[in-house]
């Protein structure tokens, strides 16, 4: 363990903000409608963009006639790919992965379209209404090229190719291997297997994607206000594409109303709005409507996994193999590539378990759908679903309790750090502690008694467990997305005290609901010795730090928080040095706390304000060489990152009359290391589980054989609302972690555990029918069919 996490003696004395349930400082403005989202920007006489999008799934664009639209009332400009061809360089989602084809990101479809909803023409007008009127006047001729509607069809011999240059629809293929899986499976006492699927899902942030490009005529500069969680990456990519240096391109993520991954990639519309702003010399606005957001923002899952697990007679899992077919949609995304989601499935499949041998193969194939991209949990919701289903199938075959089989396979305390069969290394985390704690918190034994009683009344009551581990706060040794050339391993904090004694802390991380404004200030308050209320946190602004990649992959508390700790310590030292002059005391006798430097054990103290005055405004008090600027900057890289883990337990009842699933109990025991703010941690778990319930029971983007999205509105795309989300108990295990502050990332975990736990609970509830749950979401319709089929099978058997 590094010295980072060892508490310093002074820490014990000072009041602690870290660990306290402080109310979120961002909430008053957000909850009273005073937040400022990208769409709230009011630049001078902005123009509005509307996009004509493809109604064809795969077609050559043979003719686009925009003449009538150009002369429509209020229209300023109409752009097709041809009109802007000279204004940018395509953005390439590069990766060093073998067997990967990088599809370029273009602002508008050029040559052909590859999914329904792809933007073809942009109309710029004085209002969105008039822009949409003009869209109707555009004539487009399509030459259909054949729909690739499902991943199985994409890999067929005669499938139409979405990207002819790639020579195949398989955009990424990869295999992980350790040990002799075949032999281990052969000698296994029990083998269980299945074909598992999680259908396509929308991340569905409350705020749709939204961009305002403000053009500064004086400097020929653009400030892009974007609902992004990666403003730094967006800045770097657009800078490169448009040839605009950072001094003339600022990218700001203001208040952002959720992302869940859907705002975590560079979008064609972000490129287009900057290209058009520069071309027209005007400020521009665009906000996706719900239809555009659902049908063109990056989507999630869409994977089919054929998997098999072998156990020895003691219930120890010895071998695991899986073939993953990922339907990645029409394009790779920038910067993560189309490999992000499906490759993560195979790299995380062994989960928190000590499985000896492993083979995981993955193919990501192009289909006529919007790209899949990062979604809260990336890969792990489905890898956990598959591994946890297999664990339960193994338990059933061996006559073991699901709790017991997990205990026999989880990596235990003395075995860390542990390298699982896919190569990921888990640092010391409370895997077994999470399992035991969740079991105790839900009253596992009593639940089983309750289940027995329910069964004897003919009711369908089931209990499901899911344990998982994830890598969070990943440092520079591991690429967040496979083979990606961007540095995702560090984040910067710049803290300064101005001449009024106020503290400004600037970060490149970009909160979009996580409450970083609060938690980062909590860390600084403790480590700098400042008053919490005196700290202003700036984030999501590319001008604030030289480089940043943003908030994703459960990294911001670890990397941003780590940077904050280090920068605070540097600045605290400076304060001490000034204070030792002012108080005529030795540096070592000074303690900084509550916005003051104090001579320990006395009432002699100077406030930050007095310190600032002495440094900046007063020419006499300090010698010149002691007037050090009160600022510190630190770029923190946790090198490896740190593990986070949890066990979820769900108890459900299936109503055989309606086939609805009711969640009767839900418990999460999670280990996110040192908690910064328990209220925020609980909120993240609650929200994550709610989304996981969506994945397990409700949400599905349904595309038909012609590539048309059938569930394109919130009437048809069903998300859980408050009555569908049960009360949950969240228990915390704060085990030590070696990164700065001992924080582990925890923003994603809820969505990882919930689908698996609920799937297992439903399978357990339906076990009187001998039904396997291998497809999510388990809608009432699907449960109805499974029960009908099971009844039919039972009838055939008895006849």
């Amino acid at each position, binding site marked *: 363990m590094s010295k980072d996490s060892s508490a310093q003696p002074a820490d014990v004395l000072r009041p602690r903000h870290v660990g306290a349930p402080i109310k979120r400082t961002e909430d008053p403005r957000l909850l009273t409608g005073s937040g400022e989202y990208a769409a709230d920007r009011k630049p001078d006489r902005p123009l509005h963009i509307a996009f004509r999008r493809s109604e064809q799934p795969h077609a050559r664009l043979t003719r686009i006639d925009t003449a009538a639209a150009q002369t429509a009332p209020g229209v300023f400009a109409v752009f097709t790919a041809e009109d802007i061809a000279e204004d940018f360089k395509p953005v390439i989602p590069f990766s060093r992965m073998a067997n990967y084809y990088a599809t370029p990101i273009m602002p508008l479809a050029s040559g052909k379209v590859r999914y329904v909803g792809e933007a073809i023409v942009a109309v710029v007008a004085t209002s969105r209404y008039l822009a949409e009127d003009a869209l109707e006047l555009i004539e487009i001729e399509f030459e259909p090229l054949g729909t690739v509607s499902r991943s199985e069809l994409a890999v067929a011999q005669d499938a139409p190719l979405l990207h002819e240059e790639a020579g195949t629809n398989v955009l990424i293929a990869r295999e992980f291997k350790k040990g002799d899986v075949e032999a281990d499976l052969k000698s296994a006492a029990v083998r269980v297997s299945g074909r598992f699927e999680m259908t396509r899902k929308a991340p569905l942030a409350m705020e749709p994607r939204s961009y305002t490009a403000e053009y500064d005529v004086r400097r020929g500069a653009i400030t892009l206000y974007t609902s992004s969680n990666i403003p730094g990456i967006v800045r770097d990519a657009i800078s490169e594409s448009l040839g605009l240096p950072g001094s003339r391109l600022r990218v700001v993520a203001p208040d952002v109303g959720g992302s869940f991954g859907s705002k975590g990639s560079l979008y064609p519309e972000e490129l287009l709005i900057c290209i058009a702003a520069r071309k027209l010399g005007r400020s521009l606005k665009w906000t996706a409507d719900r239809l555009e957001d659902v049908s063109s923002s990056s989507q999630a899952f869409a994977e089919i996994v054929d998997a098999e697990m072998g156990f020895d007679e003691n219930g120890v899992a010895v071998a695991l193999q899986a073939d993953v077919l990922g339907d990645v949609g029409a394009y790779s995304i920038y910067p993560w590539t189309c490999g992000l989601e499906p490759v993560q499935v195979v790299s995380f499949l062994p989960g928190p378990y000590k499985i000896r041998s492993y083979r995981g193969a993955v193919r990501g194939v192009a289909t006529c759908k919007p790209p899949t991209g990062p979604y809260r949990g990336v890969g792990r919701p489905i890898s956990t679903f598959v591994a946890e289903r297999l664990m339960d199938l193994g338990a059933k075959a061996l006559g073991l309790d699901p709790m017991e089989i997990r205990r026999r396979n989880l990596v235990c305390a003395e075995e860390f750090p542990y390298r699982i069969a896919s190569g990921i290394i888990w640092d010391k985390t409370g895997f077994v502690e999470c399992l035991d704690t969740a079991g105790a918190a839900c009253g596992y034994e009593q639940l089983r008694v309750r289940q027995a009683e329910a069964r004897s009344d003919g009711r369908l009551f089931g209990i499901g467990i899911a344990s998982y581990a994830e890598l969070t706060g990943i440092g520079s040794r591991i690429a967040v997305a496979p083979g990606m050339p961007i540095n995702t391993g560090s984040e910067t904090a710049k803290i300064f005290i101005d001449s009024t004694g106020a503290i400004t802390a600037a970060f490149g991380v970009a909160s979009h609901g996580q409450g970083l404004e609060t938690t980062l200030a909590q860390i600084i308050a403790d480590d700098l010795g400042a008053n919490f209320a005196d700290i202003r946190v700036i984030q999501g602004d590319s001008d604030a730090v030289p480089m940043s990649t943003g908030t994703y992959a459960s990294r911001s508390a670890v990397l941003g928080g780590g940077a904050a700790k280090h920068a605070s310590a540097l600045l605290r030292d400076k304060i001490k040095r000034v204070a030792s002059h002012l108080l005529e005391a030795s540096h070592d006798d000074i303690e900084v706390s509550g916005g003051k430097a104090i001579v320990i054990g006395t009432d002699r103290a100077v406030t930050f304000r007095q310190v600032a005055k002495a440094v900046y405004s007063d020419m006499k008090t300090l010698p010149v060489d002691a007037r050090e600027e009160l600022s510190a900057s630190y770029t923190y890289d946790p090198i490896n990152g740190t593990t986070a883990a949890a066990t979820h337990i769900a108890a459900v009842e299936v109503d055989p*009359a309606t086939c609805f699933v009711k969640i009767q109990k839900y418990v999460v025991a999670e280990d996110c290391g040192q908690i910064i703010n328990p209220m925020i941690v609980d909120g993240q778990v609650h929200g994550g589980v709610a989304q996981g319930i969506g994945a397990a029971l409700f949400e599905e983007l349904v595309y038909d054989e012609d590539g048309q999205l059938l569930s394109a509105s919130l009437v048809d795309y069903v998300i859980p609302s408050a009555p569908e989300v049960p009360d949950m108990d969240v228990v915390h295990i704060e085990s030590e972690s070696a990164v700065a502050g001992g924080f582990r990332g925890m923003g994603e975990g809820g969505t990882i555990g919930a689908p698996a736990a609920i799937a297992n609970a439903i399978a357990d509830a339906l076990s009187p029918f001998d039904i396997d749950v291998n497809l999510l979401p388990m809608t009432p319709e699907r449960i109805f069919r499974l029960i009908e089929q099971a009844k039919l099978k039972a009838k055939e058997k008895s006849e």
Partner: protein
Amino acid sequence: MKPARFEYVAPATLDAAVEALAAANGEGKVLAGGQSLLPLLNFRMARPTVLVDLNGIKDLSFIELRGDSVAIGALTRHREIEHSPLIASRLPVMSAAMRHVAHLAIRNRGTIGGSLSHADPAAELPMMAMLYGASLTVQGPGGRRTLMAKDFFVDALTNCLEPEDIVVEIEFPILQHDGWAFEEVARRFGDFALASIAISIRRDKSGIEDARVAVMGVADTPLRLENVEKQLCEIEVDSRMLDRFSELVTSSVTPNSDLHASAEYRKHLLGELAKRAMRTALAAKG
């Protein structure tokens, strides 16, 4: 997702509204609560040239007892019906159904005239109109006339009105019954129904003397199952009664399959709901 251009008029009287609508040459639309119409406008699925806003016509909003009936003004909000003691005591099935209509914010705006005119096959108020055998008073350029609910609903989202007609009020005959029930299943609280059944019965010593049965979500319009009503008066109230009723109901519908439910599942749901509903209705007395 912005509506195409339209003119907006907000008349203060019904006569003025009818006149404005007539002047639009079939291209006009009435705006009531806007909860169904505005999404259609935003998707440009409806493109009226004139929107005639009824919200300023105050005398279109009322609930009153009129002899053996309850009359409700077309502009009466869902929320007022939901909380009306008169409705609760005289039209109890309707009162129970109202809780299933959308969400609070939508019930605050949505109107009975709008709901009936919109004619969603999975909406509660059209089903209530069928169950109670309601009559609608309609005003057009030629004056007022009365339409029966069973003639009003033509198809999914289609009624029998002419473009210049406005629904003025709806009269619901009070049923002299002693048992009733309303059952519905929707994906989420407040969603449109996957299947629903409403029944109302009067019992005599030997069995059921008079019955009303209506269903929705299982056809292109809400249905009143008069055939089932008749047979109910002939079957015995015994241990097999619930199953027989359920069979009668399911065998008289042929639901459609859609994104949310297959025809088979809807039928299954309806059968289960029929049993629940009859159990409740029978338990009310005897």
